[in-house]
C-alpha cells in the first residue's frame, strides 16, 4: 500500500475561511461558558472581530493567485473580490442581527422549541432575550460562503453549499414574532434546498462520469476534447446549474424566495438577500466561466431564456404584492435576472460588471431591510403595504432614505442601481446579448411601478390610523443603514474606484 501523501496546503491563502470557522467553533463554546446576560455582546464582538480579521487577512492576501489543497480551492481575483464582498456585507448583516434596542430581546426567538402560541411562548416573546446561537450559525454560513466562491472542484463546492445552507435553514426558523410563518419558511427552504442539493450532487456524478474528475479544470479539458457521451455533459451541466440557480433564486427555481424572505427574521432576510446572492452568483460565474466555457453556445440561449423569465416573473409579480418583504423578495428575483444578464456576457466585462452589481445591490438591499425592521407596532414589524401610508409625514428622514433606496432599485441615475445596471447591460450588448438587454429595459419599466407605488404611499397618501410608529434605530442598525445608503450614493456618483477594482479582479485561474 502506497504512502498517503498530503497535498501541499497554502494556509495563508485559506486563512480567512479558517478564521471564520474557528470563530464559529469558539462561538459554540461561548454559548456554554459565558452567562446568558452578556452572551449577546460577547458573541457579537467575537463574530465581528472574526469577520474583520478575515477581511484584513484577505486584504493582505490580495495579490495571491494560487490553486491549493490538491486543486480543491482556487484563490484568484474573483475569489478575493467576492470573499471581500461577502465579508463586508456579512459584517453589516451581523450589525442587524445583533440589534437589541429596536425590539426588546432582538429579532430572534428565545427558545426555538417552545410550542407556538403556548403561554410560555407568549412570555418569551415579550421579555426574554433572543437566542445567541445565531452568531456562530452566521459565522458558519459566512465561512461556507467564502469557501463556496473559492471552490475549484465540484465536490468542495457541494460541501461548501451545505455548510452555508444548513445554518441558513435554521436561522430562518428563529423569528421572535409570527413564528409559524417563520417555521413554515424554514421548512420550505430546507425541503426545496435539499432537492436542489440532490440535483447538484447528481449533476456532479454525471460530470464525473463525463470528465473522469470533479475539478473544474479537468471538466474544462474534457469539454474541449470529449471522450465520452456528451449526454453526460449536458445532463450534468443542467443538474449542476439547477442547484446553483436555486440558490440564486432564478425563475423557475425562485418560488421559495418570497415565502422565505417574508417568514425569516428580517436581519436574516437581509443577510440572505445580500450575502447568499453574492455567494451563489460567485459560484455560478466560476462554474460557467471556468469549466463550461467550451460549450457557451449551448448554454447561453437556455440560461438567457431563464434570465428573461426571471426578470419578467420578478417584475410582474412584484406589481401584485401587498407585503413589503414579499415585494422586496420579488425585486430581488428580478435583480437576479439582471445579474444573470451580466453573467451571460461571458467576458471579462461580464464578470467585472456582475461583481459590481452584486456589491451595489447587496448594500442597497441591506439598507432596505434595515428600514423594514424599523417600521413596527406592538405586534412587531408592520410589513403590509397599507400600513406604510403616510410614513413620510411622520418620519420624513426614514421615508426619504427608503425612497432613495427604491430609486436605486429602479435604476435612477446618481444611485448605484443605475451604474450597476449600466455595467451589466453594457457588457451584455458587447457580448452579443442585445435581446436580453431589451428584456432588461422593458422589465425595468414594469418593476418601476411597484417601487413608485411605495413612494406614493409613503409621501402622498394621508397617514391612516393604523400607520405604525417608526422605531428609533439602535446604534447598530443606524450604522448598517448609514453605510448602506452612503455606499449606494457613492457607487452612483463616483463608481470609478470600485469598477477599477472589479476589472483588476476579473481573471479566473484554473
Amino acid at each position, binding site marked *: 500500500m502506497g504512502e498517503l501523501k498530503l497535498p501541499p496546503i497554502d494556509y495563508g491563502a485559506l486563512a480567512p475561511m479558517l478564521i471564520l470557522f474557528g470563530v464559529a467553533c469558539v462561538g459554540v463554546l461561548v454559548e456554554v461558558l459565558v452567562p446568558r446576560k452578556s452572551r449577546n455582546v460577547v458573541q457579537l464582538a467575537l463574530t465581528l472581530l472574526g469577520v474583520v480579521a478575515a477581511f484584513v487577512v484577505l486584504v493582505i492576501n490580495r495579490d495571491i493567485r494560487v490553486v491549493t489543497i490538491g486543486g480543491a480551492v482556487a484563490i484568484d481575483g474573483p475569489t478575493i473580490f467576492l470573499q471581500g464582498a461577502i465579508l463586508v456585507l456579512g459584517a453589516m448583516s451581523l450589525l442587524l442581527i445583533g440589534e437589541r434596542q429596536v425590539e426588546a430581546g432582538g429579532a430572534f426567538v428565545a427558545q426555538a422549541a417552545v410550542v407556538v402560541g403556548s403561554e410560555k411562548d407568549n412570555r418569551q416573546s415579550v421579555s426574554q432575550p433572543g437566542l445567541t446561537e445565531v452568531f456562530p450559525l452566521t459565522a458558519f454560513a459566512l465561512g461556507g460562503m467564502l469557501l463556496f466562491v473559492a471552490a475549484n472542484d465540484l465536490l468542495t463546492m457541494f460541501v461548501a453549499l451545505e455548510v452555508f445552507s444548513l445554518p441558513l435553514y435554521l436561522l430562518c426558523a428563529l423569528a421572535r414574532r409570527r413564528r409559524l410563518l417563520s417555521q413554515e419558511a424554514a421548512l420550505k427552504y430546507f425541503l426545496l434546498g435539499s432537492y436542489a442539493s440532490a440535483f447538484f450532487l447528481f449533476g456532479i456524478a454525471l460530470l464525473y462520469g463525463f470528465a473522469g474528475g470533479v475539478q473544474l479544470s479537468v471538466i474544462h479539458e474534457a469539454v474541449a476534447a470529449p471522450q465520452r457521451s456528451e449526454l453526460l455533459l449536458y445532463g450534468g451541466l443542467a443538474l449542476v446549474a439547477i442547484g446553483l440557480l436555486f440558490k440564486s433564486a432564478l425563475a423557475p427555481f425562485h418560488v421559495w424566495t418570497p415565502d422565505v424572505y417574508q417568514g425569516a427574521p428580517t436581519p436574516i432576510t437581509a443577510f440572505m438577500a445580500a450575502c447568499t446572492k453574492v455567494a451563489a452568483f460567485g459560484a455560478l460565474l466560476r462554474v460557467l466561466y471556468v469549466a463550461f466555457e467550451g460549450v457557451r453556445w449551448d448554454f447561453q440561449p437556455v440560461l438567457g431564456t431563464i434570465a428573461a423569465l426571471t426578470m419578467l416573473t420578478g417584475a410582474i409579480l412584484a406589481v401584485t404584492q401587498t407585503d413589503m418583504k414579499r415585494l422586496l423578495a420579488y425585486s430581488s428575483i428580478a435583480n437576479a435576472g439582471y445579474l444573470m444578464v451580466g453573467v451571460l456576457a461571458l467576458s471579462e466585462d461580464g464578470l467585472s460588471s456582475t461583481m459590481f452589481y452584486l456589491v451595489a445591490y447587496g448594500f442597497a438591499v441591506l439598507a432596505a431591510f434595515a428600514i423594514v425592521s424599523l417600521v413596527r407596532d406592538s405586534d412587531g414589524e408592520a410589513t403590509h403595504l397599507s400600513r406604510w401610508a403616510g410614513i413620510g409625514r411622520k418620519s420624513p428622514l426614514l421615508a426619504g432614505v427608503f425612497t432613495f433606496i427604491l430609486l436605486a432599485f429602479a435604476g*435612477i441615475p446618481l444611485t448605484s442601481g*443605475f451604474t450597476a445596471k449600466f455595467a451589466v*447591460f*453594457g457588457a451584455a450588448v458587447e457580448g452579443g446579448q442585445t435581446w436580453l438587454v431589451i428584456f432588461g429595459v*422593458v422589465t425595468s419599466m414594469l418593476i418601476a*411601478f411597484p417601487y413608485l407605488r411605495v413612494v406614493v404611499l409613503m409621501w402622498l397618501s394621508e397617514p391612516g390610523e393604523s400607520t405604525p410608529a417608526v422605531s428609533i434605530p439602535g446604534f447598530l442598525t443606524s450604522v448598517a443603514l448609514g453605510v448602506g445608503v452612503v455606499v449606494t450614493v457613492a457607487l452612483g456618483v463616483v463608481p470609478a474606484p470600485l469598477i477599477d477594482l472589479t476589472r483588476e479582479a476579473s481573471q479566473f485561474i484554473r
Partner: protein
Amino acid sequence: MTDFPFLSVLTLLPLAGAISVACIPRARAELAKLVALGWSLVVLALSIVMWVAFTVDSQDRFQFHEKYAWIPSWNANFTFAADGIALVMLMLIAVLFPVVILASWHDVDQSRRSAPTYFALLLAFEFTMIGVFAAADIFLFYVFFEVMLIPMYFIIGSFGSGQKQYAAVKFFLYSLVGGLFMLAAMIGLWVIGGHTFDFAALVEAGKSFDQDTARWLFLGFFVAFAIKAPFFPFHTWLPDSGGAAPAGAAALLVGVMDKVGTFGILRYCLPLFPEASRWFAPAALVLAVVGIIYAALLAVGQNDLKRLVSYTSIAHFGFIGIGIFAFTTQGGTGSVLYMVNHGLATGLLFIVVGMFVARRGSSLVSDFGGAGKLVPGLAGVLFFAGLASLALPGTAPFVSEFLVLLGTFSTHKPYAVIATVGIVLAAAYVLWMIQRTTQGTLNPVLDEVPAMKKDLSLREKVVVAPLILLLLVLGFYPKPVTDVINPAVQATLQDVGTQDPTPTAVADGKAGR
C-alpha cells in the same frame, strides 16, 4: 473671460441653492422664499454674463468647453459645452425660474406642506434643467435627463391639486419608459461608437454606423424625446400633469422641461443618426401635424384652464416638430426660436391662469365669466398672453411660427398647408377661452369671492412685466436670438446632410429650379 468655467458653475449654483433652502426650517418660510429668489437671480446674472461672453461669429459651434474625468473605465466625463441652441435655452431657464419663484410666492402658504421644501425642489429642478442643456457627454445628459423627474415628481405629487397622485405617477412612468428606451439605445451607441460618450467623437463615429442599427438607435432616442416633448401619440401625460401641477411648476413643465425633448432631437437624434433621421422624417412630420390639429381640437373642448393650456402646448410642439424635420435652416431656426418664445408665452399664460385659479379657487372655465369686470388688469394680461400664444403678429411667437411654416413650405408643402389650419384653431381655442372667462356678463358667484376683486398686486406686476416685455421686444427685433441660433442650426443640418433651398431663392419664388 471665456476661460471661466461658466457651464459647470451655472449648473452647480442652483444645486447649492437647493441645499441651502432645504436647510431652512419650515417656520421661516419667508426667508426660504427670499433665499430661493436670490439664488435664481444669481443664476440669471451669470447667464447674462455668459450670453455676452458667447462669440456669435466664432468658428467653434460649441463654446465654454469643460471636461473633467468621471468614470474613466467607461470613458464617461463631466463634459460641458454649449452651442447657440443650448445657450438660448439656458437663457430661457435663467429668466423663467426667478419669475416662477416670484409667481409661486403664496402657492404653498395655505397648504400643510413645507414652503422651504417646495422652493428647494424648484431649485433642484433648475439644477437638472441647466445640466441637461449644458451637458456635452451623452452619459451626463442621460443622468440629468432621468434625475429631473424626481424634483418634478414631488412638486406635482406633493404640491399639486386635483388628481395629483395619479398625475405624478403617470408623469414619472411615462418619462421613465422613454428614458429606459434611451438607456438601451445609449448602451448600443456606446458599444458600436467605440466606447465613448463624447458628443463630438460620436458624431464622427456615427458616419460609419450600420444602417439598420442606426435606425434602431434613432428610434430609442426618438421615443424618449417624443414622450418628453410630447408629440402625439405620447402626449397623454401632459394634460394630467399640467392640470395637477401648481401653476408655476406647470409653466416650467411645459416652458422648459418639455423643450428637452425637442432639444434632444435636434442635438442628438439628427447629428448622430443622419440617415435614420431622413428615413424617419416623414413619419415624424405626420405625427407632428396630427399633433397640431388633434391637440388644438381637444384644447377647444377643454373646460379646465390648466388642461387647456397643456393641450395648446402640445399643438405648439407639433409646430416645433415640423420645423425640425423639414430640414431647412429657416425651419430649424424657427423651431429653436419657437422653443424660446413658447417658453415665454405659455409660461406667461400658465402663470396668469395660475393667478386666476388662486383667486377663484377653481380652474374650471365654467366657474368664471365676465371676470374682466372685476380684475381688468389681470384680464388684460390674460388677453395678451393668449394673443402671444396664438402667435399674433407683433408678439414673438409670430416670428417663429412664420419661420417654421416658411421653412416647411419650401420643402414639404402639404404639411405646411395643413399646419396652417392649426393657426385658425389656435385663434379659436384662445379667443373662446378668453370670451368665456373674462368677457360677457359677470358670473354672480364671482362677486361673492373676495379674492376676485383684487387686481394685479405689485408682486404680480413684477412677475408678468419681464415676460410681456420680452415677448414684445423679440416680436419686433428677434435678431439677437436668431443670430445665436442660426450657426448651430446650420451645423446641425450639415451633419444631417440635407440640401437647404437658399432663403433668397425661396423669396424669389425660384425654389428647386
